């Protein structure tokens, strides 16, 4: 194989593995770089050797059937201190708001949360579920049978609370009547004659692009 092609493939492998959250399978890399899988394996071995030889603080490791960058074993003390300080785990403002809305308004459907937050909350909700802070607690009795979410026991434990009753009281808002009505309309799916379905928050048109809010 031409040297130029290999150099390009080597750089592409580095970039793609760097961009990925999960280990990348050699088949995927082969397809992206348009080279045989064998060649990908050879490139990855060479890259790992390069990093070791250059004394880099990271390595390219083959894990769970794919390649990923990870920290060099020698550097464990530094990484450990960094991770323990909590620098890597922080709830984003968006996640915290969504979690707070669920905590105070449970049981609540995804569409209802979206209506309140004004954005698509799918990925945020997935992360909160994955962390074990929220879970499915039932189905809306109305048409559509939307899944309803609530907070978990783990959520209470982490916050150091005995029960949901121990949550601090919400501030008293004095919103105009129309605002309350509009919010209520958005929240009470069963009362809406238009029959809004789960995936259509009241302002669906506003989401003129596919982006959703940040995952934490």
């Amino acid at each position, binding site marked *: 194989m031409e040297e130029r092609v290999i150099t390009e493939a080597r750089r592409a492998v580095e970039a793609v593995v760097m961009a990925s959250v999960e280990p990348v399978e050699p088949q995927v890399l082969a397809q992206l770089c348009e080279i045989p899988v064998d060649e990908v394996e050879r490139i990855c071995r060479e890259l790992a050797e390069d990093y070791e030889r250059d004394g880099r603080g990271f390595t390219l490791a083959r894990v769970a059937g794919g390649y990923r960058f990870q920290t060099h074993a020698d550097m464990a003390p530094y990484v450990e201190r960094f*991770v323990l300080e909590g620098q890597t785990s922080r709830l984003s403002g968006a996640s915290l708001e969504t979690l707070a809305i669920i905590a105070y308004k449970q049981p609540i459907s995804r569409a209802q949360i979206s209506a309140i937050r*004004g954005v698509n909350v799918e990925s945020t909700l997935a992360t909160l579920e994955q962390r074990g802070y929220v879970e499915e607690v039932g189905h809306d009795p109305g048409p559509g049978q939307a899944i309803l979410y609530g907070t978990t026991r783990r959520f209470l434990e982490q*916050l150091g609370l005995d029960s949901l009753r121990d949550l601090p009281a919400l501030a008293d*808002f004095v919103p105009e009547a129309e605002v309350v009505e509009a919010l209520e309309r958005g929240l009470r799916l069963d009362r809406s004659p238009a029959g809004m379905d789960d995936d259509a928050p009241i302002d669906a048109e506003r989401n003129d692009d596919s982006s959703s809010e940040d995952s934490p």
Partner: protein
Amino acid sequence: MSYAVSTSVYEGPFELLLHLILKEEVDLWDLRLTEVIDAFLAEVERLDHVDLDTATEFLLIASTLVELKARRLLPGAESLELDEELLRFEERDLLLARLLECKTFKDASGVIERMLRAGQGIVARTAGPEEPFASMAPDPLERVTPAALVAAANRGLVPKPRDVVDTYHVAPIRASVRDAVEILLALLPVGEDVSFRNLVAGIEDRLEVIVRFLAVLELFKQGIVDITQLETFGDLRVRKLDARSSGNGTALDAESLDDWDDAPSAVAASREDH
């Protein structure tokens, strides 16, 4: 709640003005009023889905232009007071400044777009630490106090602020068409041509002249007066018709005047609906 419709060629009135002046090299003051309006209407019609806000803003800038231009056409334009002359330049400069500002940010947005697009081709590593480090990380919720949670709930649940109708461009109403109609009815002799110039003689406030002109139009619409104009931009002659010769009599339709009084609130209401 509002929804976004951004399929328009022009995103706003300033953009359209910029386009007309810079690309079409149009001298706005050389246009007839009807042409200014037609050009704007044509653009509004070109919008695939007219979003009320955009249409309203188009109307606003069109009416600003019409107003600026109309001032030139009113009687006495030749003998403008120095103050008025300065005022006109001030208005012009204000419009110019806003157009320049609009153009500046339009160009800046082009660079930001290029940077954003370049940024899309670059992906940051967000995989985080591998095991065993990943499990060592403290639970993010451990750092969250109940107080922080309630603060987030208050932030998230607070009703979003309502759209406030922006009225900075609306001139205070100093003269009403209703009053002007009554004054004109008292001033006009039956069956005799009177120059519009004479009807506004001695009036210094330009807005009052405009209102008196609107009153003439209203009376014309109701068949109470007849208007003749021999040449474009020539003197306007107003004649009050004889009650017996005009079909419906000279009884003033007072309800029709309500439209003038209600005009601003009607606009406000339609915006609220949106």
